[in-house]
């Protein structure tokens, strides 16, 4: 519903964003694809040669590949489950009348504002450190042996830290959605004799579905690229226990300087991310119709 002139103007105004993003996507991607077919190590400059699919072969047969894939999925799904379930619970709680709601909200938002490297450092050293950390001190106070989080449960510890960072986001979105819940519908159901749990499952949860979709979409985008938290805390270890795909590629290209192998890994990561993306977009596309 518009004139040809405004449609033309629309296209013109859209193009800078589209062109820039397209270049931002395609140029580095093309270079990465090219590198992935080269034997290319920064430590041995001038020895680049065509390598065919060797890099991909090495990447897939790297003993770290499968653990990294599983770790990536565990991380993303673990954080999503914790934040969505915790977020719904917190949203329901914060939606109740209480004193000082604004202050509680500030407290809950705060972790989202902390930069990932800071939160990782704080959790690693000040809370989870088996000697000097607060958790160790608390365990000692209770007469328990201190727990070495990053040695015994590295991935779970990272999931905990990342979930702490993203819980505020899930809570806020779900709280906002809660507040637009139709009270009359709730009261009608109550008049019809529906119990608290029935109302929660059949009215509240369906109403929150759209918000949950948004949480899943946005968080997945950011969770697939979790990096600083791993770098600061475990460096992917012990062994490959907390290495994700992102981190594996980083190690190969930036620490081992094997650009060819790293690029092949990068391409694999891009393809996997796109599979997740297509799956998500399908789901979101349905839920985001407005």
């Amino acid at each position, binding site marked *: 519903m518009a004139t040809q002139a405004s449609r033309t103007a629309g296209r013109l105004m859209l193009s800078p964003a589209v062109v820039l993003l397209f270049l931002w996507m395609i140029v580095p991607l093309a270079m990465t694809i090219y590198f992935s077919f080269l034997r290319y190590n920064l430590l041995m400059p001038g020895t680049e040669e065509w390598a065919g699919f060797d890099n991909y072969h090495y990447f897939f047969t790297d003993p770290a590949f499968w653990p990294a894939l599983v770790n990536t999925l565990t991380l993303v799904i673990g954080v999503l489950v914790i934040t969505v379930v915790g977020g719904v619970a917190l949203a329901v709680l914060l939606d109740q009348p209480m004193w000082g709601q604004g202050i509680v909200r500030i407290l809950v938002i705060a972790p989202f504002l902390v930069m990932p490297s800071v939160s990782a450092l704080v959790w690693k050293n000040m809370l989870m450190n088996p000697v000097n950390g607060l958790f160790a001190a608390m365990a000692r106070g209770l007469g328990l042996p201190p727990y070495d989080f990053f040695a015994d449960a590295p991935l779970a510890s990272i999931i905990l830290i990342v979930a702490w960072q993203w819980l505020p986001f899930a809570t806020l979105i779900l709280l906002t959605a809660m507040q637009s819940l139709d009270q009359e519908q709730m009261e009608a159901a109550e008049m019809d004799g529906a119990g608290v749990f029935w109302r929660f499952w059949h009215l509240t949860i369906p109403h929150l579905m759209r918000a949950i979709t948004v949480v899943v*979409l946005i968080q997945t985008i950011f969770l697939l690229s979790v990096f600083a938290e791993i770098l600061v805390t475990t460096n992917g270890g012990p062994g490959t226990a907390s290495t994700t795909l992102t981190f594996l590629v980083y190690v190969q290209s930036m620490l081992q300087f094997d650009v060819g192998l790293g690029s092949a890994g990068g391409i694999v990561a891009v393809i996997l991310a796109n599979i997740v993306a297509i799956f998500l977009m399908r789901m979101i596309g349905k839920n985001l119709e407005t």
Partner: protein
Amino acid sequence: MAREATKGRKAVTTLVAWGIGLVIFFPILWTVLTSFKTEVEAVNPHPSFLFFDWTFENYRTVNERSDYFVHFANSSAIALGSTLLGLIIAIPAAWSMAFVPGKRTKDLLMWMLSTKMMPAVGVLVPIYMLARDSGLLDTRTGLIIVLTLVNLPIIVWMLYTYFKEIPGEILEAARMDGATLSSEILYVLTPMAVPGIASTLLLNIILAWNESFWTLNLTAANAAPLTAFIASYSSPEGLFYAKLSAASTMAIAPILILGWFSQKQLVRGLTFGAVK
């Protein structure tokens, strides 16, 4: 009509909510408290919560060791610069998507978001080389460009959802009133979308401020923002908890304060405009 909750129930809710809120906030609170302790006190096996000898020594040491204000200036320049540049590119794009949508608009939006799903490591080496070859490595300009592109899809999407709430008739009225396209956007759309734009601005400043992949990998000394400043404390050097805490507090304080002061915009911004 919301019903009045009983006093007793409200008290219980308050207690539980404050308890959970404090637990969530605790790591930050603990960091801030530790930053005022001596290094010895900071690793005391029986930590004290408030009753210790407060000292500002750590802040002085940290600032001497690594010039805080230089990093702060870099962070500010990069966060503000990339957000403003992003807005300038995104406002016309979002106008177009919201008010002259085509059949492909939804797909285009989804494609934009999907570029954010590209793992950054996959393109780190080429971007690093491009930045190096064009002299943008370790410069504020280089980081502003990269972070603008990284956050552009989010900015476009947020603005799009806010713009869609503005009735198209008002823009048509402006057109009938003789407004050109640029005055329509400048005098009618933008002022009407101020709350949405403010939320977008705020959220993206936060995202850019905290971005720690590109900022770490594309800077060395000159343009290093606070993320790099804090990273220099990640390698353990003996007793350093108090100094680490002071550095952490200094790195996150500006955004915490900004976020708390503009809580309303932040809450709206955090929902990315997707939920009302």
